[in-house]
């Protein structure tokens, strides 16, 4: 009987080790086998990469929130804390999936004074997940991949000085769509740029209206839709959204609408001119992800991920709405 290859002998022992069985007896054992098996025995205890990354993320969150020192960060009012929302986020956060995510992250810092709160790199250096705080809002981002290709989005950014922010954005590599003007229908000081990654940013300083008691959310997703009037009932049915102001043309086209979900708002209008629909990603925190997932499907969405408990402490699911936008539906349950 000839000696079996070392690769086969080793795999027999590894398979037996993993399934707690006895390996087949070898008549002629390779001399290296025993030493390799000792390595294999330790590898059974190899830590999960996902766990290593998730724990790092959680520690980063704890330090970002100054939990280690027991201090509450100045920018995060304690009254903002909602148990089912991950600390530091609101009910709705735009999730920008892009090529060259590290450069996009740098752009957010340079253009808008963004503060990197978290960045989880993959082994190849790409960004698995990152969060950048702008004002009292947050942009989440990740490098595009086969499952989630690049998907630019549109964001309404409320700032103290629209002109200054507009100028910083151009310096950081953005191109102008509209220079800041007082003539915008909203009455705000308002300008628009396109960043080098294909996202549109509408930069505004409120002048024409008074924010509600929760104040202005610095970062608001802005959806340009075909059939925007149908999106509002979808969001009501799926997410329990509340339309705050819907302005329609005499023909029924949505000229502008603000819709609230939980403690956040997003805006939308009927696609027009160069403001055409995009397949955006939105991260929405809800009290019960499983229930909302079912409601979203019932309202016409399609599933892209069934509810699962994630190692980073979220119960999370994914759906695509009838307009092509992806909603990551999550309930923060914390890392046990």
């Amino acid at each position: 009987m000839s000696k079996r290859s070392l690769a086969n002998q080793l795999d027999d022992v590894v398979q037996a080790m993993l399934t707690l069985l006895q390996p087949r007896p070898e008549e002629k054992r390779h001399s290296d086998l025993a030493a390799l098996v000792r390595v294999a025995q330790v590898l059974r205890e190899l830590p999960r990469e996902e766990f290593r990354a998730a724990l790092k993320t959680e520690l980063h969150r704890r330090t970002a929130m100054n939990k280690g020192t027991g201090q509450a960060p100045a920018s995060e009012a304690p009254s903002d804390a909602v148990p089912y929302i991950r600390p530091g986020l609101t009910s709705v956060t735009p999730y920008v999936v892009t090529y060259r995510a590290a450069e996009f992250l740098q752009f957010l810092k340079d253009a808008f004074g963004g503060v990197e709160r978290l960045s989880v790199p993959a082994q190849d250096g790409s960004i698995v997940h990152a969060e950048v705080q702008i004002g009292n809002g947050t942009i989440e981002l990740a490098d595009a991949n086969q499952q989630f290709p690049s998907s630019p989005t549109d964001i309404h950014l409320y700032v103290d000085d629209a002109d200054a922010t507009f100028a910083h954005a151009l310096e950081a590599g953005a191109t102008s769509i509209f220079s800041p003007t007082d003539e915008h229908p909203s009455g705000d000081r308002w300008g628009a740029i396109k960043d080098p990654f294909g996202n549109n940013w509408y930069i505004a300083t409120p002048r024409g209206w008074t924010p509600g008691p929760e104040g202005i959310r610095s970062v608001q997703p802005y959806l340009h839709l075909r059939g925007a009037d149908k999106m509002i009932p979808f969001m009501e049915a799926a997410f329990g959204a509340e339309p705050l102001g819907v302005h329609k043309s005499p023909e029924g086209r949505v000229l502008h609408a603000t819709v609230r979900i939980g403690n956040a708002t997003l805006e939308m209008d009927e696609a027009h001119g160069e403001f055409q629909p995009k397949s955006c990603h939105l991260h929405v925190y809800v009290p019960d992800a499983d229930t909302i997932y079912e409601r979203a499907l019932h309202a016409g969405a399609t599933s892209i991920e069934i509810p699962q408990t994630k190692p980073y402490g979220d119960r999370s699911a994914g759906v695509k709405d009838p307009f092509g936008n992806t909603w990551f539906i999550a309930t923060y349950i914390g890392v046990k």
Partner: protein
Amino acid sequence: MRTTRQAARKTPLQESDERLLVEAAKSDPAKFGVLYEMQFERVYAFISNRVRDRAIAEDLTSEVFYKALANLAAYEWREVPFAAWLLRIAANAVIDRGKRAARELPVSEDQLRSVKAELRVVEDRARLFRLVGQLPEAQRQVVHMRFVEQLSIREVAARLAKTDGAIKQLQLRALQRLRAQMGGGYV
């Protein structure tokens, strides 16, 4: 083994670097992440050497780093090196887990001596875990799928679109490389 033991010993420069990092993290907790990167494998290796259940090992590893972060301000280098301080927290966490139903007891001198005796094994395990991250990508993937996810050769082959034989070869190459890097005489 000699190579491994020498690698585990810190040079004065490494030690002063680590002291600076600890001091930096004490004044700015955001820098704790660097210490975490340096110490994760050591803490996990220590705990998984005592607790063979993966879920419990992960739970306890999390607990150690949460406690370390929360108590970093009180840590003083002159009393004990940072890694030893972490492993003391880990030893207490493991013992607490075992005695949770009973009255909690502090770590005894005997137990502390046994912690020291374990350190050589823990350093070897931690080093092996770190070396897995430096394997060529295909070998690293096979090691994780095989030993962490515990997929069969056929499942790994299907996922990586390779033949069963190719996966067995990658598994063999990975273990040979790890064994060689560990100094040729692992445990």
